[in-house]
């Protein structure tokens, strides 16, 4: 119960903190809009097939969630280091994972702005009408995708704890995930050896669940796969975190000074 309260309180706290910077918020919304604009022009030039344009609109919308997560999550610990709070959080009696996880889920939740902005952008500037067959499941699929992307961010955050410039890794991960998870390109179009990597990434299943729920398909298996993979990231991330923290405590190297 205490852990749940900590997770909930941390999520609200970090969501408020990350919502404070107007500049960061503006970039989080604008950055995917540039890409979605290019994508709408590219798919639109090939013909005005509403199904293809809706496919592009949904993919472009979810791209923003990963954008909002990749750099902030990968550099979450470095940011705590700069603020001088990393050692305090690591020394607190609460498990450090319960402090870090809401941080990365909050950054992913900022991506909701991108989803809303991109869908509005596609509707009013490009006239892309998005029909959602099952609105409830659609919302659930979006929530599950955001949650799983936040969990992937958690795994990245703990993996890069010893890396001072972890934001650069997060930035470099932006395009590969957009590509491999099938946000804008069907996974079937990628080389065969890339597909297993796609299947191991929760956003792939989340994206499919969102599309299936919009098209009236069967999103449940994809939704469950998305959540299961997200849970696996957290479990693996906790193992990594324990190892990293033990090593940092033994060597006194948490601050990287």
């Amino acid at each position, binding site marked *: 119960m205490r852990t749940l309260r900590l997770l909930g309180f941390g999520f609200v706290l970090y969501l408020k903190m990350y919502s404070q910077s107007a*500049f960061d918020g503006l970039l989080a919304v*604008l*950055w995917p809009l540039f890409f979605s604009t*290019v994508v709408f022009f*590219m798919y639109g030039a090939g013909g005005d097939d509403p199904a293809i344009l809706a496919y592009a609109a949904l993919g472009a919308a979810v791209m923003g969630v990963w954008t909002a997560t990749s750099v902030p999550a990968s550099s979450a610990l470095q940011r705590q280091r700069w603020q001088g709070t990393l050692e305090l959080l690591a020394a607190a009696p609460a498990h450090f994972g319960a402090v870090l996880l809401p941080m990365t889920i909050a950054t992913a939740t900022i991506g909701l702005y991108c989803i809303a902005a991109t869908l509005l952008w596609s509707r009013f500037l490009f006239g892309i009408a998005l029909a959602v067959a099952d609105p409830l499941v659609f919302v659930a699929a979006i929530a599950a995708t955001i949650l799983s992307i936040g969990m992937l961010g958690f795994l990245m955050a703990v993996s890069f704890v010893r890396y001072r410039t972890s934001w650069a890794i997060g*930035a470099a991960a932006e395009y*590969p995930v*957009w590509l491999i998870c099938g946000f*804008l*390109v069907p996974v079937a179009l990628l080389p065969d050896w890339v597909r297993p990597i796609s299947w191991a990434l929760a956003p792939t299943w989340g994206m499919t669940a969102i599309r299936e729920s919009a098209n009236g398909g069967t999103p449940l298996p994809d939704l469950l796969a998305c959540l299961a993979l997200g849970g696996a990231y957290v479990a693996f991330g906790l193992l990594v975190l324990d190892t990293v923290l033990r090593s940092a405590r033994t060597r006194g190297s948490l601050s990287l000074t």
Partner: protein
Amino acid sequence: MTSARIFFIGGLISFRALFGFMSPWIFIPTLVVTPIFQILLFVYIGRSAQLESDEFYVIGNALQYSAVPCLFAMTNTIAGERFQQTLGFLLVSPARRLPLFLGRAIPVVVNGFFVAAFSMLVAGVLLGLDIPTSALVPMALVIAASAFSCTGLGLVLAGLGLIVRETAVFLNIVFGFLLVFTGANVPLDVLPGWMSAISQGLPFTHGIDAARRLADGESLAEVSNLIVTELGLGVVYAMAGFAFLLLLERQSRRHATLDRA
């Protein structure tokens, strides 16, 4: 002689000191890996949309991505002085402003050239592009001209960096703007007329067009007007940026606002 020293040695030292991307831990993920994935992303979107060939996206994105080193480095090598609290010392120095500011642009152009050329080469090999050997040297010239023109725009933004605090956010927005408008991924005739019109005044538009024509077998002479236009834009931007910097320097002296942004 002093001006030449400020231009070459001062420019190089400033670039190494203030362009934080020079650390290999940042340089490799950001300026080596990322441009290749940007190219691959748009190549696959292009295949999915069945709009243009792989070559179209490789050339467009390799050139356009050099906006990252050109814009960020040019801004950081001037606006970064304020962050390091050395801007005041720089501006009270008797050094001539032309070599002082423009000298910082040369390493930026070289870096932008490297990023574009390397990503084009790697992506070309990965995707099996067949660019005529005779086009390689003219292509290098086009890449250099594009890096120069974007660095000119970077000089304008460097001036803005003296009055705007969040330069990184601003530069990302300019990068996105160039992605949409320069024809890197969307043929200019597909863009609405007003967007195509704006693209004619932006860096990369003519360079990308020239590089694609060279790859398609046209000669250097046939694309020379595009290269000259790209270089001309670079000169105009560089002059505007230089004038802007001088103006802001005067304003900051008059109103004592140098470190206030």
